[in-house]
């Protein structure tokens, strides 16, 4: 069996205790939430922490509830399965609920957490492999090596953001709440990801993501998440499309947002999507034409790389198709926002 490298495990009961452990142990400690991403990566010797600090027993980090202002507050340790099946999430943040319901397979959604998915390590076919495999390759830019095998001569890692929740949360304008031994901070998820595939998240050592806040959506909010993958289960996205449509009471689009993932190190917002779709009425040829234009915009703005498995040109071809289909799904599903 592929074994984990040796490390010590701590299971603090409180957030404070967890933060203290991180502060004491510095860079040699890592946080583990559901473990569904970290443990395979540890088995692949991609990290070598001396200490794992598990958040599993911190009750205050788990749970999904309506926020005072009418949005959502989701504890970082809330299982993905709970987000996917929560009536509150399905009505107030349909794109997020759908995205969480499409992560991996049933067991991993039970184990994996929303916070863990937001903080998922970037993925690449030259990186997510065993130590032996990577050593035979001569390693890569992201870990233990100096060459990029995706972009010849590339000096910047282009491993792909592969978390289904992130584009959905970006479309929803979510805010991430972090705590550390020295205090708390909030950051809009739009500001959180970077284009560096080695570390695509602006998270400081010692910080713990505790909560994801989603602002209230307007009454005519619609959302959908479309996921391209080889199989109907288990797989990471080959392309993820989060759609937001805020409509008037007459189903006219007032504001829209599209965020794509599994392209490069950070999810990508389609520019000019809102202005293109605004003013069109769902279910009319005008909307379909606008959707077609947005699909074309997305195609022009995206350049999938051969970072994750799957033909990069084909993934590029799929961008407009999945943009159109996900827009259609958002437009045709019953408006569930209350």
């Amino acid at each position, binding site marked *: *069996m*592929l*074994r984990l490298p*040796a490390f010590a495990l701590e299971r603090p009961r409180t957030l404070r205790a967890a933060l203290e452990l991180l502060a004491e142990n510095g860079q040699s400690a890592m946080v583990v939430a559901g473990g569904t991403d970290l443990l395979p990566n540890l088995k692949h010797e991609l990290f070598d922490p001396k200490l794992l600090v598990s958040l599993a027993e911190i009750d205050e980090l788990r749970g999904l509830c309506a926020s005072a202002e009418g949005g959502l507050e989701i504890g970082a340790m809330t299982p993905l399965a709970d987000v996917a099946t929560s009536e509150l999430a399905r009505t107030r943040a349909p794109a997020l609920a759908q995205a969480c319901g499409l992560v991996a*397979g049933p067991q991993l959604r039970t184990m994996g957490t929303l916070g863990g998915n937001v903080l998922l390590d970037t993925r690449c*076919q030259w990186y*997510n*492999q*065993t130590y*032996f*495999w990577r*050593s*035979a*390759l001569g390693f890569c830019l992201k870990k233990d090596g100096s060459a990029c095998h995706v972009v010849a001569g590339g000096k910047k890692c282009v491993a792909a953001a592969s978390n289904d929740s992130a584009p959905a949360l970006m479309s929803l304008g979510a805010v991430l709440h972090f705590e550390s031994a020295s205090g708390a901070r909030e950051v809009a998820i739009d500001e959180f990801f970077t284009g560096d595939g080695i570390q695509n998240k602006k998270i400081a050592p010692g910080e713990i993501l505790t909560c994801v806040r989603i602002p209230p959506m307007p009454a005519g909010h619609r959302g959908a998440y479309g996921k*391209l993958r*080889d*199989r*109907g*289960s*288990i*797989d*990471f996205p080959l392309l993820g499309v989060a759609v937001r449509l805020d409509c008037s009471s007459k189903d006219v689009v007032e504001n829209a947002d599209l965020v794509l993932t599994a392209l490069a190190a950070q999810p990508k917002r389609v520019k000019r999507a809102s202005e293109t779709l605004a003013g069109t009425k769902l279910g009319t040829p005008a909307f379909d034409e606008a959707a077609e234009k947005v699909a074309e915009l997305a195609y022009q703005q995206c350049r999938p790389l051969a970072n994750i*498995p*799957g*033909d990069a*040109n*084909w993934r590029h*071809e*799929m961008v407009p*198709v999945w943009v159109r289909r996900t827009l259609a799904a958002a437009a045709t599903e019953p408006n569930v926002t209350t």
Partner: protein
Amino acid sequence: MAARDNHGTSPPWGRSFGVLGQPHRKLDGLAKATGSAVYADDLALPGMLHAKTLRSPHAHARIESIDASKALALEGVHAVITGRDLPERYGVIPWTQDETALAVDRVRFIGDPVAAVAAIDEDTANRALKLIEVRYQKLTAWFDPASSLAAQTDRIHPDTKGPGNLSKHVHLCFGDVDGELAGAAHTIEGEYEFHGTTHAPIEPHCAVAAVDAAGLLTVWSSTQITHYVHRALAKVLHLEAHKIRVVQPCLGGAFGGKSDPFSLEFCVAKLAMLTARPVKMLYTREEVFYAHRGRHPMQMRYRTGVDKDGKLRAVDAKILIDGGSYSSFGLVTTYYAGQLLTGPYHFPTYRFDSTRVFTNKPPCGPKRGHGSVQPRFAFEIQLDELAGRLELDPIEIRRRNFQGDFTRTVNGQRVTSNGFLKCLDEVERLSRWKERRGKLGFGRGLGVAGSMYISGTNYPVYPNDMPQAGIQIKLDRSGLATVFTGGNDIGQGSNSMCAYIVAEELGLDLSAVRVVAADTDLCPVDLGAYSSRVTFMVGNATIDACRKLRGQIVQALAEKWQVAKERIRLIAGQALDLEDAARAISIAEAFQIAEARFDTLGSTGSYNTPTLGGDYRGGTIGAAPAYSFTAHIVEVDVDVETGQLTCENVWIAHDCGRALNPMIVAGQMEGSVYMGLAEALLEEHTLNRFGLHAGPNLLDYKLPTSVDTPELYARIVESIDPEGPYGAKEAGEGPLHPALPALSNAVFDAVGVRLRRLPFTPARVLSELRAAGVDAKRHAQAGLPARAEKGAR
């Protein structure tokens, strides 16, 4: 001699069965369902060490030196071995033994085993691996089979004759192929490609070895051929075979992938001998991909000529086979690629030229439908193309060319029972082919394909005149029968099959039959679970052994009761006098009466094939005592925007002779189709540009899940073969073949595009659709019915 006897398709007591033909549970079903069944990695012996393998990071290199001193010095490490410790060559085929347990001087693919460490636990063994220093001198690595065939330097096996990196070449011609092609009303030529796939059983390979104080070596291994492992261990370890015991525990899937002897079996044995402690080695999933022996990539060119009625006149094939780094079963593969195509259709003339080439890749070998899935893919598409040319229904062209039963093929194979026409009828009816084909609208289609496959082969891998299957049965005074079989139950249910036959023949309840299997100390030799031979051969041997015992029991009762033997029936745990119900006794009493009459009750049974095959070199390879036949109809939905194919339904009709247990037969049929579709749609065993396996794990190598698998409708056709056990033939491999070409043919029905290269990844399908001018938007805008558009192409 009895071994060669046929037992007839009906038992001596008449035509009715009490056990056979029913969906009985399997002997080991509940043990598996409750987690109590013991697989190789479930074994733990006192003081057991754990072993790991150091593997080559180079695709082709000379080993200049290995320094294991630092590894040996690590606390907890008990032994390190290298190729020098096990230099003896082995290989399943006696004439092509080119493997060693660990590389001797040369590594031939990334992942080739180089050294092995035994330590107190896996973590320590893994640490030790990183301390072994190996110096390599890199050689040119050959990845492309055509270039490899032309290699002049850095040959992969320098002691082979060549040319280049040739592994095996077979050229056979039957009849005047060129003349028939010249005179054909229509000829069609095409190139087809199979990409390479692997078995991926969910259980990784595992072996455990222990040497007792008297020097007996026992190896428990997840093998599907205990006997070959036994022979290979004796050869490589230089031990007398009687000092080695090989046991196959419960096996977690094989599909041909556990047919070869593997490095780990020799390593645990050697390490156990060196350390005097039990040693276990469990492959990681990545290592299973390197052990491989999967289906060979093939580049195939077929030329077929037909007369004006669509009857075949000539088939001409040229096949280039990418063998990977070792021979494995490759000699047989090279023959099978040609020899197994001559049914269910009549080939008046036939020529094939197949060339297997070594490359610096994990070695290919036998996978479910060994050697014949790839040619079948090509030929069944070509038949569809011919049907299109002649404007014939694709089922009709197959009917017209049906070879018939009790016939002989152009390459000298004897065909007995043949239910192929019935298979076609059944899938045609169940799929409502006539009403639906070509009428499902653009993007949705139906496709058909047929196939045949061997039920065992008369080629016993190493030449000998001994039986291919042996059985022993011991009867107990309690009314218990214990069956000893060398056959390997790999999940297909062969142990249960033995028990059903014994229960049927001796009138026992299934709970009164035990099966002891795949243990070389306890069981007579069987050649193992490959070539779909077990039901046919072990089944016949079991009948052979049962008939002897049944004869004794019936005779003893007839004498005691003073009645004719024909009046005695053994059934459902009782011995009956059919004309005097009051005489009924329990089967235990019957056994006791027989034991009193004949002394201790036990018997042996054997099976060997009759002399079969054509009278030419290689003529026996692919010659089977019976053949199974299959027809599939696949229903597909083509997403013309994405290239994604969704297989919606598959109707499978399979002629298995007689279904000894229809539920198990259906399970084999369904599993075969699943695997065939997976190979067509998702799976790709391939190397990247560095010669590394592109994704040696079950996330990148994609096995379909329950939501990716269509509804499968298994329809059993029973042709009752004259030589099979009660008429039975195989069901485990044949039903895989048609899935791939039927899918391609369905895509043609759906969108009018021929897919000739596997796998049908969405990217490839989309590019083929575009190349053929299929454009979703244009199609929708034109508002034309799909068939009109298709007709225009």
